[in-house]
């Protein structure tokens, strides 16, 4: 194996800790001469930690989605996408058919006597109208060019007319209040979010954030209730909630429960930024007992 033949399969298994001794020796031989692969292997755990889910991810995603949606709705160039080629072909064919039909009707009227009634208007009318719509500027309903678009056209208008009381808006308001130091107002808004939108990601995250605020206010009982709600609800369990819960239990002098909570944090997140603190608290609590 030369320095330019990178053993990608061995690297994968090394990262997963599944190498046989002979394979490890072969890989080590390569790594000694290839700084790129050596960096690849040595930094793999670091990158994995960087990419691990974080408590703030849900809020980050929500903000980014809403901002992207707003940008797409504001900018016509972003809102409009080119229709798939088959739609353009269908539109062209429909236009051609309608023009041909229209020409035939006009020709028929010219050659027919003016006293005769107009022939079959019910058949004529839809033909020229149908193909016009797909070549319009906003082909939201392009895949079904013949259909009227009320069902699809209505939601954006309705959405823009709605008041901004959404889970995301409440979450943002609470965060703003928190940043301004209005802790009571922030907690109240978080609670409103939790009761109005209990199944949302924002509500899930708000339990941990409200718990932190309540801890800072010296209200460990209320904080514990919030952390417990975070841990009970579906979704990602953050290190912050586990660490906050353990701290609240300590402040409530529930030493045995606090020890169990710190241990639980270490078991779930051995590489957590709270791991050092958890170990230190465990030492202190065990000494105290």
């Amino acid at each position, binding site marked *: 194996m030369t320095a330019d033949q990178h053993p990608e399969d061995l690297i994968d298994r090394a990262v997963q800790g599944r190498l046989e001794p002979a394979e490890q020796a072969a890989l080590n031989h390569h790594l000694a001469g290839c700084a790129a692969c050596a960096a690849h292997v040595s930094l793999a755990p670091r990158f994995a930690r960087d*990419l691990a889910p974080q408590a703030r*991810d849900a809020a980050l995603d929500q903000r*980014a989605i809403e901002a992207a949606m707003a940008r797409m709705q504001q900018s016509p160039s972003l809102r409009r996408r*080119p229709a798939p080629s088959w739609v353009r072909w269908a539109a062209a064919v429909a236009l051609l058919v309608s023009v041909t039909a229209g020409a035939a009707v006009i020709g028929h009227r010219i050659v027919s006597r003016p006293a005769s009634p107009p022939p079959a208007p019910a058949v004529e009318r839809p033909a020229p109208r149908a193909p016009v719509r797909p070549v319009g500027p906003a082909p*939201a*309903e392009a895949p079904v060019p013949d259909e009227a678009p009320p069902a699809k056209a209505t939601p954006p208008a309705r959405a823009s007319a709605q008041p901004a009381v959404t889970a995301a808006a409440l979450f943002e308001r609470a965060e703003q209040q928190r940043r301004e130091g209005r802790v009571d107002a922030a907690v109240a808004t978080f609670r409103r979010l939790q009761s109005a939108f209990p199944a949302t990601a924002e509500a899930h995250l708000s339990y941990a954030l409200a718990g932190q605020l309540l801890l800072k206010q010296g209200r460990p009982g209320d904080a514990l209730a919030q952390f417990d709600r975070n841990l009970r609800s579906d979704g990602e369990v953050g290190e912050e909630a586990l660490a906050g819960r353990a701290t609240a239990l300590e402040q409530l002098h529930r030493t045995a429960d606090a020890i169990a909570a710190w241990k639980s944090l270490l078991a779930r997140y051995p590489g957590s930024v709270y791991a050092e603190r958890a170990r230190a608290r465990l030492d202190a609590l065990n000494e105290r007992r």
Partner: protein
Amino acid sequence: MVPSPKAEPASLDGLAREALGQVPDAIRKFLAAIAPAIRRACRGVMGAGHTDLEDTIQDCFIDATRALPSYRFQGGLLAYVTKIAVRRALASRRRSVARVRHLQLLEDLHDELPVPDANVEEIERAEVMRDLIRRLRPVQAETLVLRVVLGFSVEEIALSTEVSVNTVKTRLRLGKKTLRQLLTVHAGQAPRTPIR
């Protein structure tokens, strides 16, 4: 370690098809479904504390929505959007690197406090690695990000970038060759051959 692009739920394709109708709620649901893959790719390329991270994620959402009509519903949607996100994040990092290079490292360190001392060097090495990969030719940079930073296997990269496994191996070989030279330069040693 890596969420396989093959392991994505079948419903994801359904969400994508609904999003093609351009109804806002459908697009929102689609974006929420691909958000973890987008965020992961952006965070991998740019670092968790990058000041442009959130803006870049927004850009990726728009890119992914606009690219949806071109998706052939083959090979995995998460892999498809990951590739889009990696490209966008690499471009963002290229633009902002001169502006925030030194400040950023400090922010990364600050963000991750408390950090044991042993980790500081590791964080810095990871940042250097991201920076050096950014300097490679785009197609090699994209392949190396997927492989080294996001931990994709060679087969998963082939799926994601819609090229053959052999092409991926070639890109990795050439990319790592250049990366090795860049690492040598960074370590303060003169390279034996000029860097292209």
